[in-house]
Each structure stands twice: as structure tokens, then as C-alpha cells.
């Protein structure tokens, strides 16, 4: 990358690392919280394993509310919460909090869709065999939905790369932030171009890996 000075090259590597950390950490958190939420939504839905409107409705409402708030607004709106969790409201670490929150809501819905795709017949067969509800969730629902869950996670990861570009607004780093500060504000098109190309490759890599994993996991 001779078109960039060594100092900029260092910055680029650091920004890439920041992006990887932000996306990776928030995605991990989102999966950890999104899956239980999706399962709860799916199981308590009308016609589900344990229909329960008292759980389903409010939970669905919270998920929708989070999803309908634009990310840039969500980021500043939850600053007190971010400070509580991360100890600070500025920086890459602090950016992970709103990223994880937005991704959790997003993933919860995507996961719920993937769970809905599971053939009801397999669930019924498990019931007929005397499976408990917990066994149905753990041994039928989640394993059968796994390719769909992985595909959903891939979509969320790609979206997170986009969201993470806004982290600069709260002092977070990352490729997006680098592109804005150097490429745009300092009129360095070569930086902007490099950032964009790296982001494209990054997203391509994520998508290809996700697709490969889905193919490996599904036996349809």
C-alpha cells in the first residue's frame, strides 16, 4: 500500500482491528441475547409450544421499538446506559453497547423467522414421541433451524459492519471513522478508496464464510 504513508498504514491496521472488535463483540452479545429472545417469542406465539400473549406481546413490542429507532439516534439515546455498562460513553468499547443492542433486536427477529421455517411436522413427531418442551426446543427446534440461524447471523454481521461505521459519532474507531476523518474531512480520496475496498472485501469474506457454513450445516 505504497499510496499511503507508513503512519496512515498503521492507522488503517488499527482501524481494521477496531472494526473487527466492534463487530465481533457486538455480534457475539447479540447472538447470546437474541437467540433466547427469539425462542421466547417463537414459543409463546399463538400456536406455539406454550402460547402466552402476556409474554409475547410486550417482548415483541420492545424488539420492534428497538428496531425502529435509527441507529445513530439509538446510540446517543442510550448514553446513560452505555456509561453504566462500559464505564464510559466514548470510544470503541463504548460503541459496542449500542451496536450490540441494535443487533440483538435485529437478530431476534431474524432468528424468530428462521425458527418459524422449521417443519411443524418434525415438532409434532417429537411431541408424539413424548418429548418435553425443553427437549423439543433443544433437540429439534434449534438444531433444525441451525442453517437458518447461521444465515441470519451472517446478515446481521454484514449490517453491523455498516452500523459500526457510525461509531465515530461517539468517538469510536474503526474503518468507517477513518474514512470520514481522513478520506472526507481531510480530502484524502486514496484513504477513502482504500477504506471502501477493505470494507467490501471484509463483507464479501463474511458473506462467503456464512454461505459456506450454511451449506455445510444443511442437509436438504
Amino acid at each position, binding site marked *: 500500500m505504497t499510496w499511503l504513508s507508513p503512519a496512515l498504514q498503521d492507522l488503517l491496521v488499527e482501524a481494521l482491528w477496531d472494526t473487527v472488535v466492534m463487530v465481533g463483540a457486538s455480534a457475539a452479545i447479540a447472538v447470546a441475547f437474541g437467540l433466547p429472545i427469539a425462542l421466547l417469542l417463537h414459543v409463546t406465539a399463538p400456536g406455539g409450544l406454550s402460547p402466552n400473549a402476556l409474554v409475547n406481546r410486550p417482548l415483541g413490542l420492545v424488539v420492534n421499538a428497538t428496531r425502529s429507532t435509527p441507529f445513530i439516534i439509538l446510540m446517543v439515546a442510550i448514553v446513560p446506559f452505555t456509561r453504566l455498562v462500559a464505564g464510559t460513553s466514548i470510544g470503541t468499547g463504548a460503541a459496542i453497547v449500542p451496536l450490540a443492542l441494535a443487533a440483538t433486536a435485529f437478530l431476534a427477529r431474524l432468528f424468530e423467522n428462521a425458527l418459524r421455517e422449521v417443519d411443524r411436522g418434525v415438532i409434532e413427531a417429537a411431541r408424539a414421541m*413424548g*418429548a418435553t418442551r425443553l427437549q423439543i426446543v433443544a433437540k429439534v427446534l434449534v438444531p*433444525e433451524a441451525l442453517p437458518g440461524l447461521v444465515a441470519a447471523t451472517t446478515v446481521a454481521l454484514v449490517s453491523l459492519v455498516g452500523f459500526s461505521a457510525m461509531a465515530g459519532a461517539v468517538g469510536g474507531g474503526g474503518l468507517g471513522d477513518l474514512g470520514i476523518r481522513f478520506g472526507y474531512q481531510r480530502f484524502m480520496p486514496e484513504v477513502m478508496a482504500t477504506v471502501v475496498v477493505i470494507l467490501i472485501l471484509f463483507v464479501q469474506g463474511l458473506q462467503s464464510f456464512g454461505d459456506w457454513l450454511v451449506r455445510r450445516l444443511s*442437509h*436438504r
Partner: protein
Amino acid sequence: MAKLLALPRAPTALQPERPRPDAIALDGVSRRFPGGAVALDEVSLAVREGEVFGIVGRSGAGKSTLIRTVNLLERPDAGAVRVLGRDMLALDDAGLRAARRSTGMVFQHFNLHTRRTVAENVAFPLEIAGVPAAERRARIAELLPLVGLEAKHDAYPAQLSGGQKQRVGIARALASRPRILLCDEATSALDPETTRDILALIRDLRDRLDLTVLLITHEMSVVKAVCDRVAVMEAGRIIEAGRVFDVFTRPAHHTTRSFVAEVIGYDVPAATLARLPLPTQGQARRLAQVLFTGPHATRPVVSEASRRFTLDINIVSGRVDEIAGEPFGVMTLAASGAAADVEAAFAWMRGLGLQVTEMDA
């Protein structure tokens, strides 16, 4: 226990006729769907141990709901469900799960786990029952040869044909050694040849494992191939029930008759009837369907009647078939002659124990 499976049951013919207790007893079972539609309307039914009992009906007749009430996948609003002497509706969750394990179920669309191999699918009911892995492997080694799938141990369902998938479904249903097998349109997604194979397998397993089989179907040919007794359902009710041979040869309800006609072909096309020669002046011509069963089934009745009563007898259609191992023949005759002679001929045939049903000419 492993040995038990391989032992063939003593041939039924050698056993003295003795009534066996009911494996499944439904009494006044009703089920109304939330929308208000009545799926089951006071259905009572008793399936004896060791028999293959068929429920036949058009789609929407309620047969699917009926079979689901046996293991309470569908809870009836009223009535009693007893399975192997247990009052199913009185069971708590744990009791119900245990009861379900002693009732295997086979489905129209197989309902296999797409991400589990054949062996893993068959092992599933054992897995959820907490059977240790070594024991599961041993059980799979018994079950796969039983359904002819030992070569497909590690295949995924997507790599199997429909018939093979249903064999996996059957092996899975038998994994926890149930005494009852419920078949929910088990062959409806299969081609005719595969259907025959699967039905033969079900009957064979019934004999070898002393199973009680309750199956529902919309095809009378399935009933004919595999059932001992049959119930016909319409609009949530059982309109006719009895031994398969009796229901086939003496259907009482018109719906049953139309079901039976699908297999036996009682109906003669109108165009064929129209082409029959008209009776000559002063003579009667009457059409009748004659069912040949019983001791005189093999007697040359037509030529005898023709000679005795000086009739011209035209054989419009005829076939010989076997139902539940009992042979029978059915023939549509057009008899022409003096009115009194035709009448006498029909009476004579009835006297021989043949069933004579007059048809509109």
C-alpha cells in the same frame, strides 16, 4: 429383549380364536375447532390388540383429528380415550409423555430431522427417553435391518427415496418398543408400488412384533391391502364399521359404496349400459349385480340359471378379487326373458347365498 424382536410370532391360524382386549377405546369423543367447525362428533371406536384397524374417509372427514386424539396430540372436548387400559385424559404431563412413548406414530410426510442421519433419526425417541448411547446403538442395529435400511445408516433423509424415508419413520416409531403403531396417511405421499411395499412391511411388523395398528387413509385400496377391520368416516362421524371383507362385500352406506367402488369397480359406465341390446317385445330385461361369496362362489351359476330359467344372460362386467385373504367375485348381469323367469332366477341365486342387487337399467 433384543432376541424378542427377531422372534416371529406364532402363525395366527394356529391360535385358537379368542377375543383380545381393546388396545384403543374411544368413547363418545367429540372435538370442535375454535372456529366452530365440528371435527369429531361423538365418535366411539374399539381397536382390538393385534389387529390392523383402518379408518377411511375423504379429506376433512375428521380422521386426522381422530388418530391424533389417541395420543392426545389433539385433546377432545368430550368423551373418553383409553389406550392399553390407561385413561389418557386423566394423565399428567409426565404420564402422558410415558404413554406416548408406548405408542409409535408414522406420518404422511415422514417428519424426519433433516440434519440427523438415518441412525440418528431412529435414535431420537431413545435419546429423549434417556437411553444410554451404547444401548441406542444396539437398538439401531436391530431396527435398521428390520426395515431393510442397514446400508443407509449414515445417510441423510434428503438422500433417500420416499419409501426409504417412510421406512426410517417406521423404524423410529418402533424404537421404544411400542405396542401400538399409529399411521397417519403413511402411504399417501408414496407411489403405488412403494405403497404396496410399505403396507406389506407394516403387516409383517404387526405379525412379528404383535403390534396393534391404527391407520387412517383416504384410499380404500390401502384398507383392502392391510386392514382387518375398517371404519368409514364422514363429517366427523363413523358411518359404518366392520370386518374389511364384510364392508367391501356388503357396504350399507352410500359413501362406503362409493369408496368400495374405487377399488372393486362396481359401477358400469352409462355408455356401456346404453349399448346393451333392448329386450324383445313382451320380455323383461333386468340388470343385477351378483356378488359371489360363500360355498357356492365357484358354482357355474350363470350358465345354470340360463338353462334352468331359459334366460339370455349378458355378462356386462365381472372380476374376481381377494379381500383380507378371502376370495370373492362380482359380476354385472343383464338377464332377458319372461318377467317371472327373471324374478325366479334372481331368487334362486339368492337361495344359493349369492348377493343379488338389482340396478336401474
